[in-house]
Structure formats: C-alpha cells, structure tokens
C-alpha cells in the first residue's frame, strides 16, 4: 500500500480523537529540532473550524476490540492499514520540518495485543527522541491493559499520555463492548499511569469521553470526571460527540454537539472557576440544561445571590457571574483598587461580556440590564434601572428558599 493511502486511512481514523498541543515541559532541551510552547500554535483549521496542531494518526486501524462507538472496531468492513515505525517517523519528521504540525499525537487500534501494538508505538517515539533528537511535543495514547513497564517508558519519552475512558461506568461499557473490562482495562490503566506520574510531574495525563453512545447522563459523566480529577490527578478531560456508525444506531442523536459544548463548559467551571459539585444545575433527567450554559443556569437559579456590586464582590462571586471569566475577574480585582468602576464600557474593555453580565451586576449602585434581555438575541438597552426596579423585574421570588 502506498504511503499516501496509509496516511489517508490512518489520518481519517484518528480524526475523532481530541487533543491540544500546549506544554510547559522543558525536559527535552538541547534537541536537534523541535520545541514545546506553553501557549501552543495552531497550524491550520479545517472547514469545521477545528484546529490542526498535532500530527494526529493511528499506528494501525486494525483492531481486535468490538467497541460500539468506535469507527475502527473489528466488525466494520473498512480499509485497514498499518504504518511501520520507520514510515511514521519519516513522515512526521517531514511534517514537522515543514512547520505543518506542532507535535505528534499517536494512538492506535489494538492489533494482536495491547503490548505488541504499544511496542511499535514506543519504537516510533523512541526513534524520534533518541535518533532524531526531537524536542517537541508528543502525546501518546496508552492502550488499555498494557504492561506497566511500557507505561513507564512512555512517561519517560512523552509530554502527555492518556487513556480514553469513553464512558462513565462499567454498566455503560457493557452496553458497548463485550471484550473490554472497564475496571481492569480502563480504570486500572489510568491508575497505573497516575502512579508513574507521581515520580514525574512534568508529564500530564488526560482522558476522553464519547458523549451519547451509551445512554449515559451528564450527571453520570460529571460524577465520573470529578472522581478522575480528584483521585488520579488528571490534567483535563475531553468530550467528543458520538458519531453514529452503521451497525450501532440505537442511540438518540439529538443535541449531541450542544451537549458536548455544555460538558466542556461544565468542565471549565470545575477546573478554572472553582465551582463546587453542588453548584451545578441538572435537570430531572440528569442532564444539563441545553438551552442555557451551566453558569447562566447557576445564576438564574440563585438570583438571591445577585446582583453583585463589582466594587466589593469577592473573587468567588465574580467568577460565578455570567460574562465574567478568570481573566476579566483578575482585571476587575486589580483595577478597582485604584479606579472606581462606573461604566459598562470599562467592563467591555476589560473583557467582560457585558450583555450576559449586565443583569447580575451593580455599578455605582445601579443596574444596567434585565434578565429577559438575554433571551431576546438583541443588544440590551442598557437602560439604567434603580435597584428596586431591577429587583422587581429580574428576581423570581419563587426561587428564593
């Protein structure tokens, strides 16, 4: 098979994996080529708006597993291909030298056994690091159930390692695969990686969920990911909306992209906004509200905590206000020491999304927006209301305990 054909098959097979390319890991200094960057660089964007930063391919799409969510599972009649370690190394070096990519993201189907496939993948990484003295970013997928010595080697050679957890529990995994053991193959491997990373804090671990393949709820994903963050010290989780495949279509496909987006928002609130688990609002069916983002849902359900006076609000209060992110929160905390905040324009320049924030804040004792302005899809009027008018128009007294 031609190299171009392999590239097409194995590039397509990897496109649903999600990753980022930023790293502050400087341990491969003095390299012959390649460097890592803490902010990452995007090298292109596909017509779906997603960034291409890493050379994202599979070692092989031949796979013995029967996972129902996966495009490459053993039941599918699709063209199969396999790179040799040399082919992959040469191809990657060409891509990197020409500045098409920022690093390597290498995953694989399981051919013959996890250990055998991992050996091939590790050969690729080893050749890049040792023979080519590559100092850039490498993210390696660890195959479920592989030996601990391989994980140790991967941690020594890569910037990031990960195992895809895919679903929140073994109950869900049973629906999708008869061969994979969730506790042993997935959680067991995440645990082994976590143990290795205790010795090497420069390397990080991530994971990925496939959203909507096993009928799981957002609450179940939330519980699972919180546990991973706390127990296994995960850097972050990615979410990928399930892409239905031919023989496995018994899944509701509604709202999957919106749902993916809401899960990312929830994840960021957990990691960067210090939201506690009891602050997320789930619907009766265990899912997030798909009409509004989780932060807005929190604010609307806790109107007794708003509006907040920006001149006096604490960091936690600011971070819980819609339209204010960690960066604009830092700016507000800094600037209000020397300047009195009186104007929405000031907030806009500081990066606050004024339209969203207006109903929840007070500037100089005055409110500037109404909750219903948010749903109109137009610019708010910014009419100045007195506190009494604001309270009357925005607070739903029924929701106050």
């Amino acid at each position, binding site marked *: 098979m031609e190299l*171009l054909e392999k590239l097409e098959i194995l590039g397509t097979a990897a496109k649903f994996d999600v990753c980022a390319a930023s790293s502050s890991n400087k341990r491969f200094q003095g390299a012959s080529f390649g460097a890592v960057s803490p902010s990452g660089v995007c090298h292109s964007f596909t017509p779906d*708006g997603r960034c291409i930063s890493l050379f994202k391919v599979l070692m092989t799409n031949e796979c013995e597993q029967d996972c129902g969510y996966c495009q490459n599972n053993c039941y599918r009649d699709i063209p199969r291909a396999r790179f040799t370690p040399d082919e992959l190394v040469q191809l990657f070096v060409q891509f990197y030298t020409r500045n098409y990519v920022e690093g390597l993201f290498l995953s694989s189907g399981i051919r013959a056994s996890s250990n055998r496939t991992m050996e091939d993948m590790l050969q690729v990484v080893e050749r890049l690091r040792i023979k080519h003295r590559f100092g850039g970013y490498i993210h390696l997928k660890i195959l479920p159930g592989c030996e601990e010595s391989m994980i140790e080697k991967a941690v020594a050679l890569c910037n990031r390692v990960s195992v895809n957890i895919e679903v929140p529990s073994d109950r869900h995994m049973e629906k999708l695969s008869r061969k994979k053991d969730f506790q042993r193959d997935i959680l067991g491997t995440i645990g082994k990686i976590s143990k290795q990373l205790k010795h090497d804090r420069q390397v990080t671990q991530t994971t990925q969920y496939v959203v909507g393949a096993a009928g799981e709820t957002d609450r179940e994903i939330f519980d699972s990911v919180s546990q991973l963050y706390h127990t296994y010290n995960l850097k972050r989780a990615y979410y990928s909306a399930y892409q239905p495949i031919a023989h496995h279509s018994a899944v509701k496909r509604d709202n999957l992209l919106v749902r993916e987006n809401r899960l990312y928002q929830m994840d960021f609130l957990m990691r960067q906004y210090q939201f506690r688990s009891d602050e997320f609002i789930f619907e009766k069916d265990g899912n997030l509200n798909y009409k509004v983002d989780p932060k807005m849902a929190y604010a609307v359900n806790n109107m007794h905590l708003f509006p907040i006076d920006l001149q006096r609000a604490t960091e936690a209060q600011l971070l819980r206000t819609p339209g204010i992110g960690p960066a604009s929160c830092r700016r507000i905390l800094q600037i209000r020491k020397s300047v009195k905040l009186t104007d929405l324009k000031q907030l806009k320049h500081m990066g606050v999304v004024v339209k969203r924030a207006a109903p929840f804040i007070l500037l100089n004792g005055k409110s500037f927006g109404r909750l219903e302005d948010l749903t109109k899809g137009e610019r708010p009027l910014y009419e100045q209301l007195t506190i009494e008018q604001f309270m009357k128009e925005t607070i739903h007294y029924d929701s106050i305990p």
Partner: protein
Amino acid sequence: MIRYHNNMGSFFKACVVAWLLGDSLCSEEEWNTTLLQFAPATDVAQYSWEEIQHMLRKRNRGQWIFDGRGSRLKHLLLYALRHREDKKYSICKNAIDYGLQHGIEGILYKTTEEGKELYRLYRNVFGEIHAMCGLVRFVPSGKNTLAAKVQLEHDTIDFLMAYFRQRYPDQVLILVSGGIAYICDESDEIYEEEGSPFEEAIKSDDFGQFWEIYYKAQYIQERKNLRLTAKVIRKKYWNWLQEGKLILEEEQKDTRK
C-alpha cells in the same frame, strides 16, 4: 527636544523624560534627515534611570515604571511599535503620558481610549506573529537550510526568526517577504538577499500532496462550520495557504445550495 534611538527602550525613556520636562520628541532618523538637526536636541541616553526615578519621585508619579506594571507596558510597546501605521508613535506616547498622569491601570486594563488604541496595535502585531508561527510552510533548500514565504504587514521578521530558531536550532532559516530573503544563520544575525531564487525553490516542493491528503482526512464534514473557520483563520490567508482552496471549495458548495 528629546532625541531617541530606534528601539523600544529608548523611545519609552524619551517619552518619560519629555513628559517630565514638558518637551517634545524626535527620532534619531528624523533628526539626521530633516531640518530638525538645526534645533537643539538632547540625546535621551544622557539621562540615567536613577535620575529619572528621582524626578518622578519628586512629582509623586510613575512609580509603576519600576515594578511589574512597567514591564507589562513595555511588552505592549515592544509589539505596538512594530505596527505599520505611522501614528503608532503618537498612540504609544499618549498611552505613556496617560499612565504618568493618571496611573497605568487605565492603560493596562483598557478602560481608557488610550489603552484601547495601544492594545489595538499590540493585538494586530501579535496576531500576525502568532498566525505566521503556525501558517508558514518551510521547504528544505540545500544542506541544513529551510526556506519559506511569509505574508507580513508589520515589521515582525525578527520575532518570527527568534521563534523558528528555537524550533530549528541547527538550520539556516530563510524567510522571503516582498521579494527580499531574510537569512538567519548560525551566528543568529539576520541579513538580506535577493528573494527570487528562494521563491523558485519553495514553489518546486511537492510534499504539499501529503499535507492535502492529511488535511482532508482531518475534516469532519458533519461538523462543517465555515463561520468559525473564517473567524479562526482570517480570509486574507485563504488564497495564500495551500489548504485555502479546499476551504473555498467548501464555501462554494454552500453558495450553490
């Protein structure tokens, strides 16, 4: 008149001194090439920072220059002064003057028009560097040599060289812009040569087919979102990039519908 040299540090110092003395500014180049050379002008290098700090202390102003906030402003100026607009000097000077008069927060947190304008310049220049770091495509051109064509609006070639030098420490780097080849060799000095021979070498590379195949392979059609694509990769680069034609094809499919 306070005369400054062609670098950010000198310009910044000159602005502070000019504000303290109520004087005007001129660049060394202006002073050498125009009638200004007949006017009395003091080289800003004659003032030390200790002296300036002492004068500022007396006026109880500008102590931010000597802490982290001053570094942040200098960072913004470093990029803003590379902008192609001629009025960049007056925008930068206004921002520094405002900072000295009213405090630097209004500039750093963009709550003033002066701050907003300064950030606009900074963003344009920084955005160009960031985009070029990702979108430039090198072609091996001789032994240990990489050449690429860049599309620049601002004076950013040395920033790009510094970035790529980290990425390819063992290579001679050549960036071609506007018919001139900027070459950075082992000495890390940048010198200029005629660009056309390198442009020919860049055109003749055929690795592009691998990139095209890979790029198409990564596209998830079900998620097509050209509005987002146009936001993250500015349309001015679509014709310049190899993959731009694929994005344009996708756009045309929408138009036909």
